[in-house]
């Protein structure tokens, strides 16, 4: 009997990690009880909300809409807490349970392990959503929402769940201790989930302004926007491209962080994250430039630059964990695979990482600034000229301070053995630089008995550039040139300090790598000498043995 050929994807090798975790989860007795409790509590809350609303004089459609938003808000928070908690278990548990080494030595690649862990954690979280789904159908009894809106809301929920699981997995991959992994992920989730929820609600006002059919102030607005907004460039940009990037870029980042943490310290943990940074920085810069051009306002460019600067700070923190240079293992792999200049530039090494981030970051700042200046130049009015000046202040400061941050981080990393020390010092420095000058300005103002030029003392803080930009932008004439000059000088000083630190870091890295190479060469020479001596000894013994045998055979 001929068997029915299976599709290639299904016929392929199943992820063993996923299958094993699924088996283990199936035997966990508490899962059905947890699912049942969450579903019952959600149903109770929805019934209560529905009941209360029915007593007031609102129509059934209004009740249905309220239930819809209540349900998906609850589901969002359930997923936000359950997702990271479930995935935080996965890798940290392997490490704590001392099963990790066995798994790693099987030869399964970190990407296979990460995908297996992700899929199994995601399946568990998806079970929460599926068990809640019947409760989510309750609004249909009242109307006010369409089936497509509900389906799209579930799609958004599943995408959000994937992001939370990926985040939990990234944290878990770093942690040795299960409890620490759960506490860290939960703490972050408890703080971040309401913030994202709040940002979501605030975006409804912008969405309503752009598409009046989208109701204002309701939290679950994206599915409504998909259904009700007219298709056009705005639809493509804000409802398709932007959400796609908002989901894909963080998901990719979490994936690369997980892979890096699952890879041995002496392997290449850098290339994946560097690729992510390169693509993300480019996409975000182009997106920011497009938004600026779309808005027709130079001031939007300044806002975009400020947001972009935070992305560069994230990149700097990430690269603070780079090794001084590539390990022997990585160098050997490069040789074996004939790695080209681009592969090597994206490989491990603090100076490689710093150079890449500087080139890409400053390029991004230039693109966003150019877009803003182009918009300002098209206007030609005095106001637009001042907006352009404000933008230049922000751009110069962003560039100068980014050079400092990158150089300082490279120097810190070059001087320390640990990867955490530079990150902690960087965080402290950043905090001091952001707030410290303002404290100095406040004290200076108080001591001088008035404000006067005391705010100039705050010039070392990057916030000062935003304050100056706010002061200059939107005006028709130059208010006070001193603040602009001081901001520019401060930006220049940061850049110079950064370059000095960068040169010092490069020298230090070169010295460390040179010393390492010399030690390796000495070791290789010693081993080669020993090999040669051993070979000579063996040859001599063979020669002696042959001589003795000849002597034995000799007639004399």
């Amino acid at each position, binding site marked *: 009997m001929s068997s029915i050929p299976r599709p290639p994807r299904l016929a392929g090798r199943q992820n063993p990690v996923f299958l094993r975790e699924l088996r283990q989860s199936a035997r966990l007795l508490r899962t059905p009880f947890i699912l049942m409790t969450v579903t019952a509590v959600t149903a109770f809350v929805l019934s209560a909300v529905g009941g209360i609303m029915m007593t007031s004089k609102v129509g059934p459609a209004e009740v249905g809409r309220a239930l819809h938003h209540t349900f998906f808000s609850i589901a969002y928070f359930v997923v936000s807490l359950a997702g990271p908690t479930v995935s935080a278990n996965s890798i940290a548990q392997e490490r704590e349970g*001392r099963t990790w080494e066995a798994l790693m030595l099987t030869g399964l690649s970190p990407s296979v392990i990460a995908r297996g862990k992700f899929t199994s954690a995601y399946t568990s979280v998806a079970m929460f959503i599926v068990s809640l789904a019947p409760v989510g159908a309750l609004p249909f009894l009242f109307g006010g929402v369409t089936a497509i809106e509900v389906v799209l809301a579930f799609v958004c929920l599943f995408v959000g769940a994937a992001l939370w699981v990926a985040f939990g997995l990234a944290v878990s991959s770093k942690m040795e201790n299960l409890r620490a992994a759960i506490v860290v992920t939960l703490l972050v989730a408890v703080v971040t989930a309401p913030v994202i929820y709040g940002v979501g609600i605030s975006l409804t006002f912008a969405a309503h302004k752009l598409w009046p059919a989208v109701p204002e102030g309701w939290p679950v607005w994206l599915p409504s926007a998909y259904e009700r907004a007219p298709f056009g460039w705005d639809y493509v940009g804000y409802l398709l491209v932007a959400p796609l990037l908002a989901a894909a870029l963080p998901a990719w980042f979490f994936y690369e962080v997980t892979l890096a943490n699952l890879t041995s310290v002496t392997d290449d943990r850098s290339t994946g994250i560097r690729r992510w940074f390169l693509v993300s920085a480019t996409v975000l810069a182009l997106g920011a430039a497009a938004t600026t051009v779309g808005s027709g306002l130079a001031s939007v460019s300044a806002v975009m630059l400020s947001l972009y600067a935070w992305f560069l700070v994230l990149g700097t923190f990430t690269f603070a964990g780079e090794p001084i240079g590539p390990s022997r293992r990585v160098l050997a792999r490069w040789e074996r695979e004939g790695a080209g200049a681009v592969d090597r530039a994206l490989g491990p090494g603090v100076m490689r990482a710093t150079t890449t981030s500087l080139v890409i970051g400053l390029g991004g700042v230039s693109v966003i600034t150019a877009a803003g200046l182009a918009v300002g130049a098209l206007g030609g009015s005095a106001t637009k000229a001042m907006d352009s000046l404000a933008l230049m202040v922000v751009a110069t400061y962003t560039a100068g301070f980014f050079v400092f941050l990158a150089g300082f981080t490279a120097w810190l990393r070059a001087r320390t053995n640990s990867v955490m020390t530079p990150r902690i010092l960087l965080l402290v420095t950043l905090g001091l630089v952001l707030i410290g000058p303002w404290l100095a300005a406040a004290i200076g103002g108080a001591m001088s008995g008035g404000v006067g030029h005391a705010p100039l003392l705050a010039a070392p803080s990057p916030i000062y550039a935003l304050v100056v930009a706010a002061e200059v932008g939107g005006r028709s004439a130059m208010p006070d040139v001193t603040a602009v000059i001081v901001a520019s000088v401060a930006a220049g000083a940061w850049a110079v300090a950064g370059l000095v630190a960068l040169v010092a870091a490069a020298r230090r890295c070169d010295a460390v790598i040179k010393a390492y190479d010399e030690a390796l060469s000495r070791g290789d020479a010693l081993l080669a000498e020993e090999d040669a001596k051993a070979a000579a000894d063996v040859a001599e013994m063979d020669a002696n043995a042959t001589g003795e045998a000849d002597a034995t055979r000799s007639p004399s």
Partner: protein
Amino acid sequence: MSARPAIRVRHLWHRFGGMDVVRDVTFDVGEGEIFGFIGPNGAGKTTTIRVMSTLLEPMAGRVEVDGHDVTLEPEKVRKIIGYMPDHAGVYDRITVREYLEFFAEAYGVPPDVVEVVLELTDLKKLEARLVATMSKGMKQRLGLARILLHDPKILILDEPASDLDPRARIEIRDLLLELRALGKTIFLSSHILTELADVCTSVAILEKGRLVVAGPISEIAEKMRARAPASQRRPELGAPRPAGDARPAVVTAGGVALPDEAQHRVKVRIIGDAHAVLRLIVGGPGVVGARVTSANQLTVKYQGDERFVADMVRHLVAQGVSLVAVEPERTELERIFLEATRGELQ
């Protein structure tokens, strides 16, 4: 010319923070050997093993496994070795068979290998049992089964019998001897000398990160005897078995042949003539040699386990010998260890 060593460790250094935990360690492990890696806790055994298993990169020196550099070719090394860490964990809520099937899938070996390994490690009768409900000894056995799935040439076991009861230790020892008979090279670390004395053919002793001595047990013992002052030298009880000796090898309870190095000494104190008792003992099964040490005491060197002592006592009592005491003497390995190390950490 000698064959390529299965494991070659040369001038290995490793450091954690500011502390050198492994310092210039050099030794070879021959193919088919059971190699004991001995040292007190904190001597650097696990660090050396983790380097050999590709989990750490050496800071200096070179480690080769079956000719592959662990730094440059970790993937190849991982295919050759089976590594069982100390206090290794197992997955809960999974049966013995499922556990092995998972690792078989992960190693990319056919599922029928699981059947073979279950038989080899005597876990067949426990295949449906949840791993979480197994004893420590059985979990350790399962760990051994796991590392056999991909049929590695070299087994690296870090403290395989720690925390095990005596029965489980004996079972693990017998299993190791079976594996050696299958041609595996076994690298075994422990700080419990009796655990190694029965099975090892060669040893390396590590103390405070430095290698104190390494090589076949008999060679090390010979060197130490040669180095000792003449007054402290003790006569050998019996010459090693010559090649081609047809005497049956001593076997364990599990029917596994013990290596020649698994020899022990026992002191026998009697009332009466020790020379007469010597004649009753010499030539008996398992007896490697014997000598009279005082008027009423003699030392017997034997190959085997405690059953030999029980048989000997029964035999002597049946012959009317008045036995006062039978005490085990230190093993060769214990003597080597005590003589080679300063014991600063113990």
